[in-house]
């Protein structure tokens, strides 16, 4: 019995969360450092996973399997394929920056008893989320995945509802009500999705008699398990609904803007860059593999929804007055791309989608965290309250611009690679949809540059005239992300080489082949 690496990767932050929560109220800073160290250690473990993972090896590697709840046919089964490795990597990479960026976000206000320890709670919750996200990337047992997919909501919920931007335009009272509204909305949306998925999960068990992803896929392959078409479709819809809420796909997206708007920048990053990825990841791993036929059946509708998300999200981003809301809608547009890539059912599309998950994570993190620094300086989220910042804080403005350029997927930065792959992948099977989707490219440029112009350029507003430039801690947060963006934009091969085999596998599970070019000779 070898060392349970995957379990360790998830358990470490979990234990870290407990430890952090246990730090006495006085040693606030200790808690912060502890959290930072734990996240770094997790990163180290994730790197070990990355190293130990052999792209050309078995479908699922580093597998663990133990009996858990026999009566429910549940086994504690973990295993990673390339896609999972990539996303675990993303999570582990982002966490330290999230912790670092949120360094002062949870310093307690005066109110509350001496036992009230918001700081410890904040970082403990963040680590808890990390643990649950990682394990849901690792789970190859539907039930295990479901459990953590759902349980994840609770710490997220407290992070959103419990901690918000310090200075708030309408005062603390309004702030807290809006916060709890956002938190409740987030929870109910996702819980509803999750519960509907629960029905589907039970249905799956009734039909398949097992929760093990591999077993079911195997059984379906060798024909020992057959599903009635209607059953498969219902189950697929049950699963997809939950993931579409999480992703979030139009028209189930409205929780995201509120959640991101009300939560602090690091938490917002946690939501959109990490937690939401579980949704798209699950589409790729569970929807497609468990219900290939139904997936193909649903593809047209889903593609249209994705297309709507792309255009709609971008257009709304253009119309926002609030920086964070703008980023949120931009993310909705990007998630549209991801879903489109997944259901384009081409190698390029799905690899692109996976890369997109990673790159979008990094780019949004960069943009959002810088935006957070900006907001924390002026104490307002409204675009209109800024102007001419680049004059007083050139570094901040510069990083902000780079984050923006990444968001509009400028060639040379990572997101371009994934976005183009998604487009090509979609185009090669559904040309019209692919072409319409390119509208998203133009709109992305529009909302990003308008945001930059309104906040950073023009005459210096008096309120921002005294704004300090990025501090060391903040530079430490942003610089590595930017380096990553450039590196993955120029040399994404390490990532693609990990992801490709897994995608090919998925393609064969769905019995799909890439369309052949019209002129073979050229190849």
């Amino acid at each position: 019995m070898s060392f349970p690496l995957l379990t360790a990767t998830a358990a470490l932050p979990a234990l870290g969360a407990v430890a952090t929560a246990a730090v006495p109220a006085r040693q606030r800073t200790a808690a912060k450092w502890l959290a930072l160290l734990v996240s770094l250690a997790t990163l180290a473990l994730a790197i070990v996973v990355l190293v130990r993972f052999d792209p050309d090896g078995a479908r699922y590697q580093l597998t663990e399997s133990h009996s858990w709840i026999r009566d429910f046919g549940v086994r504690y089964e973990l295993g990673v394929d390339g896609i999972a490795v990539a996303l675990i990597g993303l999570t582990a990479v982002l966490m330290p920056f999230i912790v670092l960026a949120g360094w002062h976000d949870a310093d307690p206000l005066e109110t509350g008893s001496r036992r009230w320890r918001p700081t410890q709670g904040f970082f403990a919750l963040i680590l808890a989320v990390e643990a649950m996200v990682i394990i849901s990337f690792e789970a190859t047992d539907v039930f295990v995945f479901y459990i953590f997919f759902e349980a994840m909501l609770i710490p997220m919920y407290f992070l959103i509802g419990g901690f918000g931007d310090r200075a708030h335009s309408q005062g603390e009272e309004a702030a807290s009500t809006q916060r709890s509204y956002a938190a409740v909305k987030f929870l109910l949306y996702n819980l509803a999705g999750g519960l509907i998925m629960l029905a589907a999960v039970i249905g799956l068990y009734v039909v398949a008699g097992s929760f093990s992803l591999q077993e079911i896929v195997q059984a379906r392959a060798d024909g020992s398990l057959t599903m009635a078409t209607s059953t498969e479709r219902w189950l697929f819809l049950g699963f997809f609904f939950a993931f579409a809420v999480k992703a979030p796909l139009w028209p189930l997206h409205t929780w995201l803007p509120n959640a991101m708007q009300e939560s602090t920048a690091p938490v917002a990053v946690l939501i959109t860059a990490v937690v939401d990825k579980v949704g798209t990841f699950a589409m790729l791993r569970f929807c497609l593999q468990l219900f290939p036929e139904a997936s193909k059946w649903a593809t047209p509708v889903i593609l249209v929804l994705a297309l709507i998300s792309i255009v709609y999200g971008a257009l709304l981003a253009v119309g926002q007055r609030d920086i964070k809301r703008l980023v949120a809608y931009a993310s909705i547009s990007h998630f549209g791309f991801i879903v489109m890539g997944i259901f384009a059912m081409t190698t390029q599309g799905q690899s692109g989608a996976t890369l997109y998950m990673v790159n979008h994570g990094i780019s949004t993190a960069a943009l959002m965290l810088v935006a957070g620094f900006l907001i924390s300086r002026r104490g307002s989220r409204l675009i209109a309250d800024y102007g001419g910042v680049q004059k007083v804080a050139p570094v901040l403005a510069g990083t902000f611009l780079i984050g923006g350029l990444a968001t509009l997927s400028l060639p040379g930065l990572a997101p371009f690679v994934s976005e183009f792959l998604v487009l090509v992948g979609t185009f090669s099977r559904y040309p019209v949809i692919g072409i319409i989707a390119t509208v998203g490219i133009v709109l992305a440029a529009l909302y990003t540059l308008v945001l930059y112009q309104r906040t950073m350029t023009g005459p210096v507003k008096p309120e921002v005239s005294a704004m300090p430039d990025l501090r060391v801690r903040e530079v430490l947060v942003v610089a590595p992300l930017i380096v990553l963006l450039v590196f993955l934009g120029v040399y994404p091969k390490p990532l693609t080489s990990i992801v490709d085999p897994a995608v090919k596998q998925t393609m064969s599970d769905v019995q799909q082949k890439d369309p052949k070019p019209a002129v073979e000779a050229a190849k």
Partner: protein
Amino acid sequence: MSAAAVHSLWTTAADPISKIDAPKIEYGQLSPTLIVIGAALIGVLIEAFVPRRSRYYAQVFVSAVALCAAFAAVVALAAGGYGTTKAHIAAMGAVAVDGPALFLEGTILLAALVGLFTFAERRLDPAAHGNRVDSFAAQAASVPGGEGEQAAVKAGFTTTEVFPLLLFAVAGMLVFPAANDLLTLFVALEVLSLPLYLLCALARRKRLMSQEAAVKYFLLGAFASAFTLFGIALLYGYAGSVSYARIAQVVDGTVSGVDPALANTMGNDALLLIGMALLVMGLLFKVGAVPFHMWTPDVYQGAPTPVTGFMAAATKVAAFGALLRLLYVVLPGLRWDWRPVMWGVAIVTMLAGAIVAITQTDIKRLLAYSSIAHAGFILAGVIATTEDGVSAVLFYLAGYSFVTIGAFAVVTLVRDAGGEATHLSQWAGLGRRSPLVAAVFAVFLLAFAGIPLTSGFAGKFAVFRAAAEGGAAPLVVVGVISSAIAAFFYIRVIVLMFFSDPQPNGPTVAVPSPLTMTAIAVGVAVTVVLGVAPQYFLDLAGQAGVFVR
């Protein structure tokens, strides 16, 4: 009526006297019940002979010992294989000793033990005139606010009768799910109900509400048991017997030795169906299923909180046990008649409970409605009519009862000058004041909401899965939807506790004695264990899934 017939009546009536032989009772196998009843009687004697100041301790001691002993007996029986291989009918066919019975008895006894701790709590209320007081009226007979009461309080009286009453109720609950003929069922029903009626009336604070709760509970309960009894009568009329086995045979038509009278009544399905409906209705009343639920909120709110907790937990367990046995042992032959009806009841119960709870403003009423919704979920499992269904329901009940007691125990802690602060607005910002209590309560709420890694989720999953396998997929969908609705108000409370600022003159959290702490701790422990590693208990419930008939 012909003379011959009359004469025969007399003769049959007169004849057998010489033939009566002493009944054969398996005292060992009935020991749990007997122990509890014995302890209850001792409790009565204590009330009679032990001096007032030492009564409390004596009562608590006796009750605790009795409950533990009874539980030990249950464990011993289960270990002795009475739950599985040696399961059989004891006491001349009156009481079944089998898996479900033992499992439920065990659950009830543990719940009762935990409940007992909350009953015995004396630290929460400020000491009156130097005497530690519990949450029961100093002298139930005295008029609220009258000088009689003041005198009683001054004298430091406490109603230690609650402990024997508790034990009697427990005894009834132990027999209820094990009863194997309708008469025993009825008697057990009354034995568990009557003490509860009284306990409801004994609150120390808010006595008017307490008495009102008692009256409502009593009248409606009596009303319901009248229906039950009439149902029993009709079934007896149909089958000519009240023993489950016999009735089942008659229903299946596999009965032997059909005399003309029986042949006559057997033909009359109306007797059977109406009787069944009325009997089931009586049980549905106890579990608080819509539309027989209306007593629940009022009684839960008015009764002393420890009683509410105990009642909500143990009564549900016992009643569902009886319902299961009735439907699985007596009426399986009628499945196609009662299942659709129960479908309706389950659906209405789940939805109504969840929806009405949304707008509740009193924490105890909120929990009452949530318990209604949960009754609906459990019914979904009952309807499965598979072995998995049985074990799922058993598991659910086990998990649910401890969460409930724990939750109500927490409610007893949050107090202001007027006693317990049960209005939701008073709970605002509790998380800031005392994070621990709020966190614990949050855990219970999440368990109620069925969030994964809590017993609530495991139970819900088991029940829904059983229902789905039993071909009740629509029920599962409805259940899922109503859980989503229900989640809303559980979340509301959490929001209130953690995200809204505490009110200036809000309630304080009393520091309880180890008793209540144990109760809550047990609740949390069970919630987490059953949520994370439920396998062992699922095995237990699984083994206990078979009824003897």
